[in-house]
């Protein structure tokens, strides 16, 4: 191993170490857990079976049903089911006790800062909102949003293919090395 490569590896190691250290010490707040809209929990705050509804951070207005659940004193879940069977879950987190640095950090994780919840029918307090998608049964009959899933990882064919490819590559690597020496 050349000296240059050695120093490069040391540099990468320290960079990763510092990144993990800094992110674990500064500005990291763990968001609360929110129940999924597929099995909503908590008490119903408001519920509309039809109507036009908005979603924070999205300019589009959606037609469909909308139910808001109070998960705790600080948190609410909004389950919107559009007429096209597309579900949007919005998790609302009251963040009056968080510092601006913590809020900025959470914004990088996809949370949207809402300075005044009253504009959304909530308490007049600052909230962070985060959207996620699910599929639901609206008025659109069968169907719904596509699920982007990766192929099954436990497939035995994939495992055999990886073993074969691994052994083949190692053999070629060994033979090339023998040829060169």
């Amino acid at each position, binding site marked *: 191993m050349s000296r240059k490569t050695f120093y490069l590896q040391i540099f990468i190691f320290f960079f990763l170490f510092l990144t993990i250290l800094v992110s674990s010490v500064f500005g990291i707040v763990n968001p609360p*857990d*929110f*129940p*999924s*809209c*597929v*099995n909503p*929990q908590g008490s119903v705050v408001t519920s509309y079976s039809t109507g036009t509804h908005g979603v924070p951070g999205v300019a589009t207005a959606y037609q469909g049903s909308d139910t808001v659940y109070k998960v705790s004193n600080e948190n609410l879940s909004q389950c919107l*089911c559009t007429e096209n*069977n597309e*579900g949007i*879950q919005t998790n609302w987190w009251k963040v009056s006790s968080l510092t601006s640095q913590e809020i900025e950090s959470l914004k990088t994780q996809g949370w949207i800062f809402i300075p005044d919840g009253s504009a959304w029918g909530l308490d007049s307090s600052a909230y962070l909102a985060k959207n*996620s*998608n*699910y*599929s*639901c*049964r*609206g008025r659109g*009959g*069968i*169907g*719904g949003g596509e*699920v982007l*899933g*990766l192929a*099954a*990882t*436990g*497939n*035995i064919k*994939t*495992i055999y293919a*990886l*073993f074969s*490819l*691994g*052994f*083949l*590559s*190692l*053999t*070629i*690597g*060994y033979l*090339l*090395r023998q040829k*060169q020496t």
Partner: protein
Amino acid sequence: MMSAKLFTYFGAVCLISALFLLWQRSNPKRLMFSSFFPSKVETLSLKDSQPTRLIIRNSNIDLPIIPAKVKGQNWETTTQGVSWLINSSLPGEEGNSVIYGHNWENLLGNLISVKPGYQIEIAYKDGSKKIFTVDSTAIVSPKNISVLKQSKDKKITLYTCIGLFDEKRFVVVAKIDKKLAN
């Protein structure tokens, strides 16, 4: 020299990945939800009412149902069909009945094709059958145990693994179709 190294590294990565997948395939914690300890739900005598088969015609799924338990953090799994958590309610009875299985091609690999509105049939030991209609589907973290919590309606929650190295759970929630139940 460079190409020899490249082949060696690539081969090593393939072998390590294969070994990891092999370990993961037989890992009893693979299908678990973290920190979920089901409370015992009162079910009727399982003698005749035990669910025996899960059928989703639209997704070409037709599998035997095997009763399973959670022991500590180990979730009993089967390679012969899907597992029905006996600590959850009986499918068709009041509450949330939890059914899960591997995402292998011959098991629930095709579950991700299930959409709201699809029908799920559950056959029972006594020859009866109940129909459920898919209400919602979602991808959740294994930490999100809310999907397994009991409810006051009659529903089944069916799930399998999804995502990079099976880090997520694909959940299908179906409610009993009163019109089609017999």
